[in-house]
């Protein structure tokens, strides 16, 4: 009995060991293992694909020709040509005897959906076979891929901000949209002490948070800076108390207004002007380091004003790159000369110093209209009067490549430049920036468009492709996002008709065009109307842009808004923003600013 029991035990142990070895290692005709240096995918986003790479090795001692993949898991296809690796297995493939060069190839699979490693059907698993399909091998490393839903696609959030006249006076005009530009709604932007006199000049959206800036008349009869913040897709607005608190406002503040607001991450800057109790108008700059919820007015903006400052200080544009920020505008000297105002901060907007650099041929009467920073440079654009013969007004483009340590001016003029050159706006996206404006020659205003693709180090004039009937025109605004840049304004045809103008590039400034739908889709306008776009904003990820301005004649001016949701191929004028206006709209409506973000 003992002998028999011992034999049984030994048999069980040997059998168990044998079984273990069998389950752990099979010879099989092929060894199929994940390719070294790669990892099998575990997730695939619905609607997209991922790749899986296996190494298929011939385990036999002879060359095996015309092998093939007999079965693949569902949602999986074999890449038989143009694979990532040079030894990609074809639809049939030959392998030399095991141990020789060429005894393996790389099996590249494209996975487009879920794959269940535990699928009970063998035909839903990878099998590589000899010709004939009866001698086959699978893998100990089956694909197990979970399909995950793509991140919810939300329509971009777009706003256009401006002003219109109601029966009670001017009102902030705020149109917002969250369905790719189809249905626009109007929001009320009234601080609690709002009386009238409201208008909006600047706007900026980041995610679902939007800021608008402008002015209003409060219950005390004072023109106050207006800064609204919305966190619900621009539907409702709140107004940080620190903007209008006497405790934070500059000393001797009497009245003021914002022209612009922009956020650079959590740092936001709002620029404008205020008039003090001695009737001097000084630049006004507010800073928020919490995304626009609370604000301060950096005192060095006032204390470090240029020695030549006398009056009419104003800030029209801001820009930041890292902790370096600039604010640009103008002021007036005691000799009533309008002078460019450029101030910079190297500490995230806490303290500011003014720059006195001017173009080498500067003679006076300069203004910075806008500012922006690329990933490596910061720039301010505007105009100045040259000391050249005839004292022409030239476009001005100031650039710093070293965080404000030094500034240079780009002297770039069209060959037919005559006079009245100006850059109205500048916009950057990565290393691409465009500056848009106009100049004058022989009685005609012409569009001016410059571009840099190296962050601002070198600039060139864009060879614009304008409408065939273009006679004269000008740009008032610019926007870049990704590889999409647009410049917007107006033009007059050779037949003396007026149309809005959009010049756009969707390939990073390589090619440009003036989409015809800007004109062809323009609704019928009252006779004598001069439609134009004052500004624009794009979100290339959504292929979405808006252009905003106004149209009308002397008697009647209304806001004008165009959108594209196909990266500029087609521009339309949503009726919800064209025919439908705020219920108390009377006249003189226009958009001064616009912004597009990815939304919530």
């Amino acid at each position, binding site marked *: 009995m003992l002998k028999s029991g011992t034999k049984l035990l030994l048999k069980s142990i040997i059998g168990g060991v044998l079984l273990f070895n069998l389950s752990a290692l099979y010879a099989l005709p092929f060894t199929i293992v994940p390719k070294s240096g790669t990892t099998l995918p575990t997730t695939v986003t619905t609607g997209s694909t991922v790749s899986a790479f296996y190494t298929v090795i011939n385990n036999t001692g002879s060359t095996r020709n015309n092998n093939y993949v007999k079965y693949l898991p569902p949602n999986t296809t074999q890449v038989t040509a143009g694979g990532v690796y040079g030894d990609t297995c074809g639809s049939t493939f030959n392998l030399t005897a095991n141990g020789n060069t060429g005894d393996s190839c790389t099996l590249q699979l494209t996975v487009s959906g879920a794959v269940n490693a535990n699928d009970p059907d063998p035909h839903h698993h990878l099998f590589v076979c000899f010709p*004939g399909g009866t001698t086959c091998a699978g893998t100990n490393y089956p694909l197990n891929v979970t399909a995950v839903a793509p991140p919810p696609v939300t329509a971009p959030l777009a706003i256009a901000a401006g002003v219109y006249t109601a029966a009670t006076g001017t009102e902030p005009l705020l149109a917002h949209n969250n369905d790719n530009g189809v249905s626009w709604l109007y929001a009320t932007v009234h601080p609690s002490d709002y009386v009238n006199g409201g208008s909006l000049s600047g706007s900026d959206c980041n995610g679902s948070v939007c800021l608008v800036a402008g002015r209003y008349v409060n219950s005390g009869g004072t023109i106050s800076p207006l800064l609204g913040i919305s966190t619900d897709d621009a539907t409702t607005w709140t107004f940080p108390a620190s903007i209008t608190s006497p405790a934070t406002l500059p000393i001797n503040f009497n009245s003021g207004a914002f022209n612009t607001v922009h956020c650079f991450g959590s740092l936001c800057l709002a620029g404008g002007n205020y008039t003090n109790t001695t009737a001097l108008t000084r630049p006004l700059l507010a800073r928020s380091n919490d995304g626009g919820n609370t604000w301060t007015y950096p005192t060095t903006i006032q204390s470090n004003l240029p020695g030549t400052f006398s009056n009419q200080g104003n800030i029209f544009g801001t820009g930041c790159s890292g902790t370096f920020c600039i604010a640009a505008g103008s002021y007036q000297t005691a000799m009533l000369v309008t002078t460019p105002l450029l101030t910079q901060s190297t500490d995230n907007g806490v303290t500011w110093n003014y720059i006195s650099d001017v173009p080498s041929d500067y003679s006076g009467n300069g203004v910075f209209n806008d500012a922006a920073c690329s990933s490596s440079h910061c720039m301010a654009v505007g105009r100045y009067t040259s000391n050249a013969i005839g004292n022409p007004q030239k476009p001005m483009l100031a650039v710093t490549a070293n965080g404000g340590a030094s500034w240079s001016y780009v002297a770039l003029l069209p060959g037919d430049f005559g006079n009245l050159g100006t850059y109205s706006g500048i916009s950057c996206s990565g290393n691409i920036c465009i500056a848009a404006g106009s100049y004058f020659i022989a009685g005609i205003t012409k569009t001016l468009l410059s571009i840099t693709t190296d962050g601002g180090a070198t600039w060139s004039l864009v060879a614009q492709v304008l409408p065939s009937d273009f006679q004269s025109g000008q740009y008032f605004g610019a926007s870049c996002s990704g590889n999409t840049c647009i410049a917007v304004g107006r033009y007059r045809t050779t037949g003396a008709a007026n149309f809005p103008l959009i010049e756009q590039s969707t390939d990073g400034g390589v090619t440009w065009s003036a989409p015809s739908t800007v004109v062809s889709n323009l609704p019928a306008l009252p006779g004598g109307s001069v439609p134009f776009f004052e500004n624009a904003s794009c979100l290339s990820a959504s292929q979405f842009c808006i252009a905003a301005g106004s149209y009308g004649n002397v008697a009647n001016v209304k806001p004008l808004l165009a959108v594209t949701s196909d990266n500029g191929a087609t521009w339309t004028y949503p009726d919800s923003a064209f025919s439908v206006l705020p219920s108390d709209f009377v006249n003189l409506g226009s958009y001064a600013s616009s912004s597009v973000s990815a939304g919530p």
Partner: protein
Amino acid sequence: MNKHFFMKKRKQNIKSISLFALMQIVFMPTAFAASQNTDSITINSSAWHPFISLGAGLALSSDFGESQTFPIVNPITDERYQYHANEDSQTPALFNVAAGVEWDFAPKWATQLGVEYDQQASVDENGDFVQGADVQSEDQYNYHYKALTRQVLAEGKLLYQVGQRVHPYALVALGSGINSAYGYNTNVPPFLTFTRQYEDNTETSFAYSVGVGVDVDVNEHMRVGVGYRFADLGDVTLGNASIDGIPVRGTLSESNVYANEFLAQITLLV
């Protein structure tokens, strides 16, 4: 007297018992002819006794399973399959039923002629096999399937009377084995390779058994007995083979499954 009475009643219902009619037609035409003549019933009633018997026992066999090899025919496409059967002894239960007539053809001698049906409990046929294109790529797996053996035999049994109650006997039975092979399975990982698969199959082949034993009268109508038989149960063959649905040649089979059967029986005489 009781035997005669019982016999009479049996004769009156004979047409309704088809099995007995069949036996008489096949094996005992003379007796059948005589039974049609009611005048001769009394004359022959003491010589002819219909019987039915039931038996159960064990069939000892080490013959289940047969090693086979399916060689590579096409070296480009094929693998070699070498099956090695575990020919372990198996002792499936045995069930037996028989019916026929007994003829007391001489003092102390009688013979039984009839039809019997034997069925052995299903047995698990198993073993291991090697599969591979060559030695370095071959793997070893296990396989098993079930075999169910049944026989329908014409039986002849010669009995001798010792003393008043004991009847040693010898028998011979010839007929058909109706054997099923089914449920082929392996431990080949289903997601790693394909292997030969076999369909279920039932096949008829020649079968026989010879044996000896002893019956003992319990009373006038009942005997009990024990016996030994050597049986050829016939062939056991699986059905068509395929690999991943592709038909391939050959199948697993074993011819002439032999068994030593030990049987206890109870026989009713009417």
